[in-house]
């Protein structure tokens, strides 16, 4: 069962286009949505949330078109706090809470206390970290089945990024919960993601589980003198320095058996994959 299904979704904008995007967000897992800046992550999320209409294709959330009933089950976290800056948390709560059928005041106060957010301070006086916590507070207080996060860690310090990751892991103890986490900071996802969707120039490069990724993608490091044109073609992407080369390899590792100690093979991180695939 998938929480989101996107099939052949296309949208043309003035200076950018999404081309026949197809991927799924499996229910009960954390799916990371990675890609460089300007690759179409936010545009895709906007179409998913029905903020933008796709020109072509089909988007199903909970097996249906996005509507207000579906949004009741979704918690949304942006890269910034797009709320009324002159409101306090108390005021925002009085506006937001009645909109959700499943709003849980106990949960709200639990997170408010956990995040240490002041309820009577104007939102414009919040720091970047506090703004993100505030966004999370409102996104989580109605017990959403599906949490969409668009670059939530952008501009945050490592301490809060780690706290956020811990919180997401805690949230995933509910097996019915699904998280879709868009980021270009891939180290956040190495720890928590179950699936990865990689987008580049408005098109999907791949969708794989983390297990598949760990089995498929490897970094091969060696000396430049071992790198002839035939070997170069075997790599998805390659980087050469005076000290040697390193490349992203997705094939059968037994090909390097003859190299013995002259090559070093490691599992590729998401950052490695993104780097080499974008460099290609």
């Amino acid at each position, binding site marked *: 069962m998938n929480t989101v299904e996107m099939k052949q979704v296309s949208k043309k904008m003035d200076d950018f286009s999404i081309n026949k995007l197809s991927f799924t967000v499996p229910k009960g897992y954390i799916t990371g949505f990675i890609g460089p800046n300007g690759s179409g992550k936010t545009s895709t999320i*906007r179409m998913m*949330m*029905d*903020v*933008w*209409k796709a020109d072509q294709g089909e988007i199903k959330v909970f097996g249906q078109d996005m509507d*207000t*009933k579906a*949004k*009741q089950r*979704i918690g*949304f976290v*942006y890269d910034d706090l*797009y*709320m*009324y*800056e*002159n*409101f306090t948390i108390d*005021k925002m709560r*009085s*506006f*937001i809470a*009645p*909109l*959700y059928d499943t709003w849980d005041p106990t949960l709200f106060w639990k997170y408010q206390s956990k995040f240490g957010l002041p309820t009577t301070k104007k939102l414009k006086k919040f720091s970047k970290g506090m703004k993100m916590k505030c966004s999370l507070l409102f996104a989580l207080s109605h017990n959403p089945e599906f949490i969409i996060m668009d670059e939530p860690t952008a501009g945050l310090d490592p301490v809060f990024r780690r706290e956020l990751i811990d919180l997401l892991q805690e949230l995933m103890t509910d097996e019915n919960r699904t998280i879709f986490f868009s980021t270009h900071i891939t180290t956040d996802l190495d720890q928590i993601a179950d699936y990865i969707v990689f987008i580049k120039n408005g098109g999907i490069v791949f969708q794989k589980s983390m297990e598949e990724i760990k089995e498929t993608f490897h970094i091969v490091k060696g000396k430049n003198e071992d790198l002839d044109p035939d070997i170069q073609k075997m790599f998805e992407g390659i980087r050469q320095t005076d000290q040697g080369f390193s490349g992203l390899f997705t094939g059968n590792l037994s090909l390097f058996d003859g190299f013995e100690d002259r090559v070093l093979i490691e599992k590729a991180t998401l950052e490695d994959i993104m780097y080499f695939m974008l460099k290609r």
Partner: protein
Amino acid sequence: MKQLLYRDFLLTRRQIAGTCLIFFIVSLGHYPVLIYYFIFALQLPHIMFADENKNKVHYYLLSLPIGKMCLIVTRYLYILIASVCLLLFAWGIAAITSLKPDDIFYMVYGSTIYGWQDICLAFSVVLAAFAISIPFMYGFRGAIIVHVISGVMGLLTIGFIFVSTNLPDTEENWKFNDKVMTWFRELFPLSPVVILLIGLSMYVISIVISVQLVRKNKSLD
């Protein structure tokens, strides 16, 4: 819808309270409040849209379980309700403060200024100003455009007030009714009720235009 009306009230309550206070003070001085009504009523959309557009609040609003059309229609409804309430307050407070038994001048003055024709006309002008300016605020996302539109509408309205009102040095002292009605009747040979209907029609058309703008993804994205 109730929550969106409440949200708009939260956004504007201080300005509305301040405006009511100004109306009260002005009325105590026996000056016609209706002229101030134009200035303050026209600030309502500006207050709401400037903050929203500056902070891109529509991004957040669209993630909430609220329909896009509901967002627009409720905003129009709130502006209508708030401007009617302000008008009634201006009318009521001026009527009360003008009714001083020992001061015949102000009694006459008060009853002359705030007749039903004045109310119809003032409200129609404000409705027309809203009808023209609000679609621009939905059509263009920038906060600056909201300030510019509000500024232009404010200047036009103040210009209208000066054109249509006797100035303080006249005997009638900022008397609103006669000159503006005469001016309007010369311009449009229609009764105030018809002018009010035109204002309301413009307002409804404005709602349709804003909805169409959003449907075509020209705004709220």
